[in-house]
């Protein structure tokens, strides 16, 4: 290249850069500025499923995650344009935007000094970007509210016309004639369980009441924002309580922004998360489901959809996989499966007729939701419900690819004593229906002792690959990920099977 050419090239190169810089400057004009904002989002996930959630984030948002030492939380960076996709993540319970992360907070020796520090902290935080995100998030939620209101009438009609109530009355009559355990009937009628089922089925059908409240606020732009501070504190060396921290930090926030404090009817929820020496201040982007609070009070019942999603994801479903939940209860897992993995076929089974009916109703309600969403009329999903006995499944040997289920805990349903007989029989029958070599199972149970015992001696058919320790409403449970070995299932004679199963109970 000649000197002149080289010089020209360099000049062009420089000009190009300058142009780019120029464009960049014009891009950061206030209107479009917020769309190119990058922020850190925090998400709460079922404890134990942080890695699974991180995988989902990487897959759907192409962001890598930081998994917090404060269990059940993950953090990732996004540009605000991806906010809608963030809300569609299935493995996260709640979302917040991080205002600031203080990794090594030096707590002073006395309570007064610590609380004073929190007060002073309020005024020093970089609030503006997170608040922009909050604002975008709120307007985004309002759009959803408008759409839902329109669909509300549609869906309400469907509920009234659907044979739901009629079916249940018939089934109940049948059952009371057959002296079924009354406590099982009551179980599915508990208001808490009914509420939880509604959340499974979708926001559209369940939160009609909430939407009414929200939309009435929607039209009048509030002049003064209402807020609350929620403080979660974990750690042994703190000389203050979460209430005290929330109160004093909240007081300072109020002074700084001139917002109005309101514990129940708030616009902005400020989060103060303290885990040992780590303090994270955030602004909530989702509402803590009131349903969830009720459920915790009554005790855990229907599986959270985030947990159901996590368990399914652990099994890495492949297109056309047959996925079965042989003890489906109200169908949380298969419903989550049919929604997220519609390229697989799902079967929900249970021995309890009320449960199966509930599951079938939930499936129908799901159809209503996707009808509205996609504007399609009466479209079905790749899912079926069957009434059966887990110990004697009417499925062909080796026909199922994945088994995902929430096994009886013995505390909520069934009994510990029953588990000793049930677990080996379950594992046995599940090994029969599961495809040798490629089949796998994700089984949730709190009765870890019984499960481990039942599994030992079945190494020729089940190989334990991974255990996830989870917390279900205070109960320490585990999800066992098992691979079905290549060994074909050998049908023993009736007597042999009885012997084999009883031997495991010794």
């Amino acid at each position, binding site marked *: 290249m000649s000197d002149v050419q080289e010089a020209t090239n360099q000049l062009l190169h420089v000009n190009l850069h300058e142009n780019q810089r120029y464009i960049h400057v014009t891009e950061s004009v206030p209107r479009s500025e917020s769309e190119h904002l990058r922020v850190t989002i925090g998400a709460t996930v079922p404890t134990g499923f942080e890695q699974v959630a991180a995988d989902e984030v990487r897959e759907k948002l192409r962001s890598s995650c930081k998994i917090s030492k404060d269990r059940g939380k993950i953090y990732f960076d996004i540009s605000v344009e991806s906010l809608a996709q963030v809300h569609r993540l299935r493995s996260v319970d709640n979302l917040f935007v991080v205002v600031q992360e203080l990794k090594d907070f030096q707590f002073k020796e006395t309570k007064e000094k610590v609380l004073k520090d929190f007060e002073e902290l309020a005024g020093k935080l970089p609030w503006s970007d997170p608040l922009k995100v909050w604002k975008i998030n709120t307007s985004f939620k309002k759009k959803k509210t408008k759409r839902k209101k329109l669909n509300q009438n549609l869906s309400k009609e469907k509920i009234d016309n659907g*044979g739901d109530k009629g*079916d249940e009355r018939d089934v109940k009559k049948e059952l009371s004639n057959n002296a079924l355990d009354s406590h099982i009937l009551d179980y599915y009628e508990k208001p808490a369980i009914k509420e939880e089922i509604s959340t499974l089925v979708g926001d559209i059908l369940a939160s009609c009441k909430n939407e009414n409240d929200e939309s009435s606020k929607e039209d009048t732009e509030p002049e003064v924002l209402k807020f609350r501070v929620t403080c979660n504190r974990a750690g042994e060396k703190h000389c203050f309580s979460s209430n005290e921290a929330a109160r004093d930090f909240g007081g300072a926030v109020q002074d700084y922004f001139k917002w109005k404090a309101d514990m129940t009817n708030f616009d902005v929820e400020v989060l103060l998360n303290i885990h040992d020496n780590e303090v994270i201040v955030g602004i909530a982007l989702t509402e803590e489901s009131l349903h969830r609070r009720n459920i915790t009070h009554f005790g855990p019942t229907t599986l959270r959809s985030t947990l159901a999603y996590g368990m399914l994801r652990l099994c890495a479903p492949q*297109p*056309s996989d*047959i996925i079965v939940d042989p003890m489906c209860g109200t169908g949380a897992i298969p419903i989550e499966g049919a929604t997220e993995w*519609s*390229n*697989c*076929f799902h*079967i929900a089974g249970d*021995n309890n*007729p009320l449960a*199966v*009916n509930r599951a*079938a109703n939930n499936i129908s309600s799901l159809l209503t939701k996707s009808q509205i969403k996609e504007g*399609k009329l*009466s*479209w*079905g*999903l*790749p899912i*079926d*419900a*069957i*009434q*059966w*006995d887990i110990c*004697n*499944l*009417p*499925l*062909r*040997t080796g*026909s*199922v690819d994945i088994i995902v289920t929430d096994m009886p805990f013995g505390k909520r349903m069934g009994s510990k004593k029953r588990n000793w007989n049930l677990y080996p029989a379950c594992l046995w029958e599940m090994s029969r229906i599961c495809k040798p070599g490629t089949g796998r199972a994700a089984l949730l149970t709190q009765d870890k002792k019984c499960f481990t015992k039942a599994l030992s001696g079945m190494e020729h058919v089940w190989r334990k690959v991974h255990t996830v320790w989870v917390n279900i409403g205070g109960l320490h449970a585990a999800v066992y990920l098992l691979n079905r070995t290549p060994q074909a299932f050998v*049908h023993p004679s*009736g*007597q042999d*099977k*009885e012997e084999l199963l009883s031997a495991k109970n010794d």
Partner: protein
Amino acid sequence: MKLLTHNLLSSHVRGVGPRGFPLRLEATEVRVIPVEFNPDFVARMIPKVEWAALLEAADHLRLAEVPKGPTQGYEQDETFLRKMHHVLLEVEVVEGTLQCPESGRVFPITRGIPNMLLNEEETQT
């Protein structure tokens, strides 16, 4: 109950074993519900389908246009795949029965849900 599910079901009456497949299907109420067509799903399902059982069930439901078996190059044959999609996923048996071919035991299908529970005596060893 869809025909794909029927293809997976087998009688578990004691002593029947593999002779419990396929269950004989009769229906008094059938519904057709459209399901989103996923050609990849259908193509991958084809090798897993028990054809004789599927044809027998489709015949009992008096379905027309059911392919007799996988055609050459079926993976790319959209017409074939759509027909299979319809048969496997869109035909719902709402009311009917499933009968064990070996023992004669009848299982009812009510509101689309088969009840496969056996009595105490039928399961005892």
